[in-house]
């Protein structure tokens, strides 16, 4: 009789549905990687952040990164060293002012007398003396543009070039893309970079890919920059933690004379900043 009582007691203990009186909570803090891209408002010229990229994916290209841009608008590049928008029209007309070389009694001078990179009705200059070697041409047809980046993580940039208007494939092949590098700090109307570091630890010219490519080589998305560290080096404001990425576009050798006639060629470059 006694062993049955003990057995019942043991079985009761075994099958009793007891548990620990625990409440489980989860403190989970996560700060996603962020890249903020800014330049200037095309309308007002004021500094404007128009790309706010959050690292919500892991893809290794701009197309597959899975990242989120919280801002629907896109950044428009500015003319390097200014907050002047380098919009579609500006991209076409920049870089083409003619230069008068070897005129009698004067040094070479640009027909773009007001320095706005466009030879138009706003320019004027004095009559100049001719001699046999006096030439009128375009010494270097180049467009320089930039945008600014502040990041909490390393990032990459892909680019794709698309011809604009009547630009031909031959002209796309005549145009080349250059990376001038990263400018760490400066004052282009807004001071930037006081708390920044290069996005590639190798320096201003490190991490660039496909420099000096023909536009025809960039007609599908192509990697042009690989960073390996964030731009934010220390605590600071958004502009403090920003660097400037400088690009340059050149038409052929750039040395054109009157015999080349008139022409127009342009391409839109779309840069996609992403966090791999």
């Amino acid at each position: 009789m006694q062993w049955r009582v003990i057995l019942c007691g043991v079985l009761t203990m075994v099958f009793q549905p007891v548990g620990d009186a625990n409440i489980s909570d989860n403190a989970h803090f996560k700060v996603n990687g962020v890249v903020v891209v800014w330049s200037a408002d095309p309308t007002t010229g004021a500094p404007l952040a128009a790309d706010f990229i959050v690292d919500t994916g892991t893809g290794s290209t701009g197309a597959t990164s899975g990242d989120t841009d919280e801002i629907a608008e896109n950044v428009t590049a500015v003319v390097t060293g200014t907050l002047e928008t380098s919009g579609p029209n500006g991209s076409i007309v920049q870089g083409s002012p003619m230069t008068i070389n070897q005129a009698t009694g004067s040094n070479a001078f640009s027909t773009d007398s007001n320095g706005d990179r466009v030879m138009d009705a706003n320019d004027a200059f004095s009559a100049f003396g001719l001699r046999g070697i006096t030439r009128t041409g375009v010494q270097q047809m180049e467009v320089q543009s930039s945008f600014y980046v502040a990041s909490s993580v390393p990032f990459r940039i892909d680019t794709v070039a698309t011809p604009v208007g009547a630009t031909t494939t031959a002209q796309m092949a005549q145009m080349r893309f250059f990376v001038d590098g990263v400018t760490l700090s400066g004052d282009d109307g807004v001071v930037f970079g006081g708390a920044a570091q290069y996005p590639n630890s190798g320096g201003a010219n490190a991490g660039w890919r496909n420099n000096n490519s023909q536009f025809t080589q960039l007609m599908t998305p192509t990697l042009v920059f690989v960073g390996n560290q964030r731009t934010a080096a220390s605590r600071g404001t958004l502009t403090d933690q920003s660097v400037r990425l400088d690009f340059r576009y050149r038409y052929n050798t750039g040395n054109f004379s009157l015999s080349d006639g008139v022409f127009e060629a342009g391409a839109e470059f779309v840069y996609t900043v992403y966090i791999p």
Partner: protein
Amino acid sequence: MLKPRLADLFLAIAMLCLVAAPEAHADIIDSARFKVDGVVVVWAADPNSGETIVADFIIDTGTGSTAATSGDIDLIADDLLTVVTGSLEPADENVANRQGSPLIIQRPLGTGNFNTDTNGDGVMDADDGFDAFQLRGNTDVNTRRMEIYSSFYVASSVPFRIDSLATPIGATTADQMNRMRAYLDQVTVSGDDGIAFGSAAQLPNSGGPTSGRRLNGRRFSQMLTPRNIFRGNQRTAASRGSLADQSVRFDMRYRYNSGNIDLADGAFEAEAEIIYTVYIP
């Protein structure tokens, strides 16, 4: 369970003594004994359905002064998961990117500060979106305060205590455990978070909603072994009513460091499981 058995034993011994007594009396001895053990019921929401669920039902079967030694029994094998404070949204570990980390845009030109978590779900992700914003020299991007709020509900017939234990998850470092702090903000005596609670309740510490807290704001690194965070001195059930009527809400808060994280701090993740154990001393 032990006390009734001893009583029975003493009764049996007494009866044996009576049996062994040389003189018999025509006595009949009976015992009518009633006992209601202290009970604490803890509830929150089902992580799967979001419906209210009771998952801890604690009976006062011991007398220890810590959770580990209390000797109490929880009649429900499941453990409870907390909810996001003020809601019945489960705050479980399956929520990949919990509250507390959205970035704030501070001092943009022409607009006030705004949160990048535009839909207010506590996460900065693809479901958010905002307009381009104008910059000036002092425009900043940072997390002003990284905080997580969670709660659970308690109904009790006796005073109770709560111990807590923090365990790092994943790659969370000792330094990060040192940067995170736990707060018991208060006990909310009544409200409606999708279910009304507290209409027949009183605060579990008679001193008020913030009384009975112990070492509030403790670092997670100081909670790697069980620590007492609350001591009650009265039951929550103030008058007759339903379980929800007699319940109060415990409001917890977790903070990462000062919370002021900017781009220079990079991207990071820190996570810990906090286990609260309710017991009757």
